[in-house]
């Protein structure tokens, strides 16, 4: 994907919400061509950890390193490699899937032609629904629209919060393939999931505990 080997290192992160410590001393490495499945019970702080990794929330202790340098120092470079998919799908109900995808790509700084966007939507099984406003689509189809972003971009680090939620069995398998392929091509996937969906290729699970 990129010339220099990319690495994400999470170093002794700790997170506090209010006066409650969610987790502390969380460390792991993620290199190009690897995936990491973040496990943990509800409320243990998986989403908080992902948001800290992305730079949306500050870490209470510890730091996140990208290519050996603190993410805060190389924020714009890091962000151009990053694709984050959180609980909010960042979709507008009044816009069509195609318009959503194109606006999103522009914000993320990626060139995306209409043909590329159509192809990405077709891969998610949304062929023929590209121009419908999102509010008439089902919950699963909306999620697929958001997931089409994965194929429509060229980010190397995918940070996905519960990507398998609300998908049917076939879509789960299709998404698993997409993620595995990304890893096989030298990408990185950091994801949370309550379903045991291991990806192909090298990677491991990390259990988040209090």
């Amino acid at each position, binding site marked *: 994907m990129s010339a220099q080997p990319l690495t994400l290192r999470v170093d002794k992160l700790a997170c506090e919400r209010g006066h409650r410590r969610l987790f502390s001393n969380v460390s792991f490495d993620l290199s190009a061509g690897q995936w990491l499945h973040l496990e943990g019970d509800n409320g243990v702080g998986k989403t908080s950890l992902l948001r800290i990794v*992305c*730079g949306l*929330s500050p870490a209470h202790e510890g730091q996140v390193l990208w290519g050996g340098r603190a993410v805060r120092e190389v924020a714009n*470079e890091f962000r151009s490699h990053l694709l984050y998919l959180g609980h909010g799908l960042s979709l507008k109900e009044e816009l069509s899937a195609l318009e959503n995808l194109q606006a999103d790509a522009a914000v*993320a*700084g990626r060139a995306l032609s209409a043909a590329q966007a159509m192809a990405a939507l077709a891969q998610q099984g949304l062929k023929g629904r590209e121009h419908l406003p999102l509010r008439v689509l089902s919950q699963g189809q909306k999620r697929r629209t958001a997931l089409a972003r994965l194929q429509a971009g060229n980010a190397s680090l995918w940070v996905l919060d519960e990507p398998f939620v609300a998908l049917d069995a076939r879509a789960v398998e299709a998404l698993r393939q997409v993620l595995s392929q990304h890893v096989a091509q030298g990408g990185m996937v950091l994801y949370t999931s309550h379903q045991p969906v291991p990806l192909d290729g090298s990677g491991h699970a990390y259990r988040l505990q209090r």
Partner: protein
Amino acid sequence: MSAFVAVMRRDLLLALRRKTEVLTGVFFFVVVASLFPLAIGPEMKILRLVAPGILWVGALLASMLALGRLFEADYRDGTLEQMALSPHGLGGLVMAKILAHWLLSGLPLVCLAPVLGLQFDLAPEALGILTLTLLMGTPILSCVGAIGAALTLGVRGGGVLLSLLVLPLFVPVLVFGAGAVEAQAGGLGAQAHLSILMAMLLPAAFFSPWACTVALRIALE
């Protein structure tokens, strides 16, 4: 640049698809400006005297109506997170949002003001000055209001807090905006008032995206 255009385009497109939100503010302005002449009666002298104040207060309240929605939907559906993670930087994208907001909530008022001003028997020069002050003043309302909207984002009962926060800051704009028409009518000329309005607009436009960015990042934490 493409991200700036995309954000603005998306906001304009959204407004086009749910017209009622934009029309609420415009309709409010028209109703306020039309009811006053009916209530005051056909006393031309009084109407001419109160016209700038009424039109300006109407425009100010109408643009405040739209402020609460500036970042609210984007905050709730995660769009704001994506904007914060954009390699283009949040500041430019926020500027695009403010510009789109002004085009939707400020510009229609500027265009309607000369027509509504006729109900108050305003002279053509006075109408011209009034429109000009609104053209310079409504962007200030959008810029300053955006800071308030960003600060009160995600706060329960944020609407009231937003009004309390931005209304005192809107007062100078109101004073000099409405005052310009009076000064013109009194033979003093509106030059000084217009200069002061411009002196408020420039720093507001320059610092507002930066201040919004800081406030939005805190809201996202």
